[in-house]
């Protein structure tokens, strides 16, 4: 994921002006690139999302799509932030130029945190099947994280936003400011355990839409369920805890969960035609 050789693409114009440190290309997606850079001051890190022009599209259409997508992502982030859903704040943007600066979220993706914990176990127990019970401390930690993930998604859906690409890679575990540094046990996985206690922050709203429909919300959950099963097969059972917390945070969850049953039966796409 982390590519350090940022020179293979020309950076957007906004990043060609001098700063205390050169921008770092963090990741590249199908539609855009993410740089780590600074906003106004050297001690204020930010993430810059850039959607470069697509040469295969007609320039007028390309400009319009880029502008609309950056704008809609920013609007969704603002809406979430106002409602108290944990997402990065927007710092600055130029929709016409295709970039947006956002708050840099410290920490690691939930995917990495979970796999670190499970991975360490795997080494010790060697080649046990996925159904083997996890040690109790590990189980409690993960269950607690699942609850916080479910609560974050519940809060998101409550504001009328569906994420569109929920995976454990699009959730950051931000170290807590308060109480940080206590509770790291003397045992070997003290650090991994501490990491899992971070605050869940949802990121990458590039595919997000504003929707109140049960169908869209159910698909959101389904996408995460499938992603979860393939990224963390050993923790698949724990997904039920996500849904449990989701239900507690979000009043209208029950009809979404009913819909989720339908979605599971037929898959993400509503229509099998075309």
């Amino acid at each position, binding site marked *: 994921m982390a590519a350090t050789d940022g020179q293979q693409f020309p950076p957007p114009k906004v990043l060609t002006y001098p700063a205390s440190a050169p921008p770092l290309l963090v990741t590249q997606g199908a539609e855009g690139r993410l740089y780590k850079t600074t906003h106004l001051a050297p001690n204020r890190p930010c993430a810059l999302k850039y959607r470069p022009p697509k040469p295969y599209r007609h320039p007028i259409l390309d400009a319009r799509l880029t502008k609309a997508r950056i704008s809609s992502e920013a609007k969704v982030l603002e809406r979430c932030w*106002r409602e108290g859903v944990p997402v990065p704040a927007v710092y600055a943007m130029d929709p016409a130029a295709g970039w947006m600066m956002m708050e840099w979220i410290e920490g690691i993706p939930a995917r990495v945190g979970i796999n670190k914990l499970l991975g360490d176990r795997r080494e010790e127990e060697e080649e046990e099947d996925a159904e083997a019970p996890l040690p109790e401390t590990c189980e409690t930690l993960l269950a607690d994280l699942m609850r916080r993930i479910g609560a974050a998604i519940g809060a998101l859906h409550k504001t009328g936003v569906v994420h569109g690409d929920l995976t454990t890679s699009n959730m950051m575990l931000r170290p807590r400011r308060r109480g940080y540094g206590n509770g790291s046990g003397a045992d070997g996985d003290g650090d991994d355990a501490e990491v899992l206690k971070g605050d869940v922050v949802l990121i990458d709203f590039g595919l997000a839409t504003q929707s109140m429909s049960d169908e869209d919300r159910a698909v959101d959950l389904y996408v995460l369920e499938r992603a979860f099963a393939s990224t963390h097969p050993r923790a698949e059972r724990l997904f039920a805890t996500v849904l449990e917390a989701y239900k507690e945070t979000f009043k209208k969850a029950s009809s979404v969960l009913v819909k989720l049953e339908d979605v599971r039966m037929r898959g993400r796409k509503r229509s099998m035609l075309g």
Partner: protein
Amino acid sequence: MALERLDLEHIPPSYQIYTAFFRDVSNADFLYAQLLSRNSEFEYAFIDASSVISRLHLFSAIYSAVNVLLDGNLRTPNVHSEIVVSLNINNNIADAYRRWGITPSKTKDLVVVKVVPTSNAQDESSTTIQTQQAVWEHLSQQVQGTPTPLTDDELAKTTDWPKVRKYYRLNGVPALDRVADEQDKRKQSEKLAIMGMALRGL
């Protein structure tokens, strides 16, 4: 000299940015009249300090205005008025001047921003390059007030929070209402204000 040179990230060296802060300004009417008459010697962003939250808040507006200048998309006469407009969360220019700009007989504390193109700027209006010394001499002669260091602490003293909350639609925001600590709440309010400015007109 109480004129601070700002060194902001991602600003090309073709522009120098200076700021100053004056408390208890007594000639706001005169300064306002210079802006109205488009007196070219008074190309400054005169900002009413009561609607400024912090340095970060001010710098966000400067950064946004300079970006617009670099793209050649100014919607107002110059980069200085653009800074005032950038503090707004909508595209109403008159509103922005009234809310964040200098107001006769009202403005007591004044934040001043000056953007000076340097030799390599491709700005046709730049005939002579003003030095920091020259800018300060002119300002300190023309603004009747007490020069004050532009720090977050000093700015906090003059911030009119009820006004700021109204301008940035911070009343009844769930994310703010659940914050108990006053210091944290201000930090969050600042974030929301900056976000509102970034999303101006969307």
